[in-house]
């Protein structure tokens, strides 16, 4: 679960889904919950950056195609 390893958008989605599933379940340990939540927020940031980058790339290609 480290950021150093580059993950694909699909992998990030899967990871985030897994975290959400865990957090939604019964979770008595607060420390664990916080750690999971932190990890989730990290993945959200990473995924958002990737998706934004993809959008920019798409727009770039689009403008190249249309020019």
């Amino acid at each position, binding site marked *: 679960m480290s950021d150093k390893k580059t993950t694909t958008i699909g992998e990030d989605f899967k990871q985030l889904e897994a975290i959400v599933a865990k957090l939604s379940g019964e979770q008595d340990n*607060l420390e664990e919950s916080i750690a999971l939540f932190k990890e989730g927020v990290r993945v*959200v940031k990473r995924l958002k950056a990737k*998706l934004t980058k993809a959008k920019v790339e798409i727009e770039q290609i689009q403008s190249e195609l249309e020019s």
Partner: protein
Amino acid sequence: MQQMDWLQDKNQNEMVFQVSEFNEFINNLISVKECVVEGEISEINVRQNRWVFMTLKDPEKEEVLNVFATFYQVREFINYLQVGSLVHVYGYPRLYGKSGKFSLSAYKIVPVGDGKLMKAFLELKAKLEAEGLFDEGRKRSLPPYPARVFLLTAPGSRAYSDFIKVTRERGFGKITIYHIPIRVQGVEAVPSILRAFRLVRMYADQADLVVITRGGGSLEDLQAFNDESVVRSAFGLPIPLVSAIGHEADVSLVDFVADVRASTPSNAAEIIFPSLSEVSQELDLLNKSLIYYMNQKWQKKWHSFIQLKTSLVASFKTPFDRVRDLEIKLKSLMEHYGEKIKWLQVQNKLKSEQMNRVVGQVLSVWVQRWEKDKSLLMSFDPKAVLKRGYSITVDTKGGLIKGYDQVKKDQELITYLSKGKIKTQVKGVYER
């Protein structure tokens, strides 16, 4: 008579004919008589869907006759007017001034049966068709942007130059044409075509498709392309075959076996090579759909991302959250029960009111009855009766006297009045 006068006039003045005058003169001489000519169509061309040019020949002799008609006049049987068809042409002889050609100007052409060549052609066609050589299902589509093409045609022919010319006009990028020369008519034609197809099979990986083409001609001219061995050899080539044998109206068996049939050599090039405008149009369309799908895909990802983000925040719960959740739950429960209790109270109140009302009603009924009974009772009070002037008589023992038979003469009675009593002695007893 008039034209004879005119002729005499010409002769008298020893004038020389102008060409147009002469043609007109000849036409005046020959076009008076309507004729019917029987012959086999050896060539037929339809131009702009308006004019029909045909060459008619005798089945056995090498004599030909040009026939001209408007498409409109012969449209009734146009589908039966094929090379080799035996027809009756109704028309007038005519010399066409502009070409100096003599023709039969037809107003009606009626097919009367198939010529010999046509019969053989149709028989072979039926046979090969039955074997499945012409099946539509096995026809392949052409590669969209072919770069290497085998061209099978006569060297230096019109078909060759037409094909190359259109390819140059339309084609872009690097296109390589491998010309395999063939003889398109005569005794050498069949072996040369067979050899060319062998080469195509051998070097099939060197090209994307193969074109076989020649210009228009009579059924005799196209004979090599109706040869059984040629047709069989053209069947099932490793790469798609485009055929353009003759002109629009000409049909050969190679055309049937080919994957794609073009009407002319130029048309073959048009079919094979997309024009720059066609390609750019297609590219434009591709661009648009590319952008569309790309954006759509991204939108979908983004949407699920936002959803996940929201559910992440929602799913994270500290014990405080849990306590708060419980509190909320409890509160809502209490509210729920509070409401219920309130409701019950209201119901209760309603009930007791109802009860009171019922009891009241019953009571009032009783009270009313009691009141009635009371007054009735009151009316029975003997004192009240005495007050009205009546009296009560009793014997000395207090027995109530109601009739004459209860008393005897000299018996003592006591009569009670409203005020006081009287002691009496009976003097007589009478029934009436």
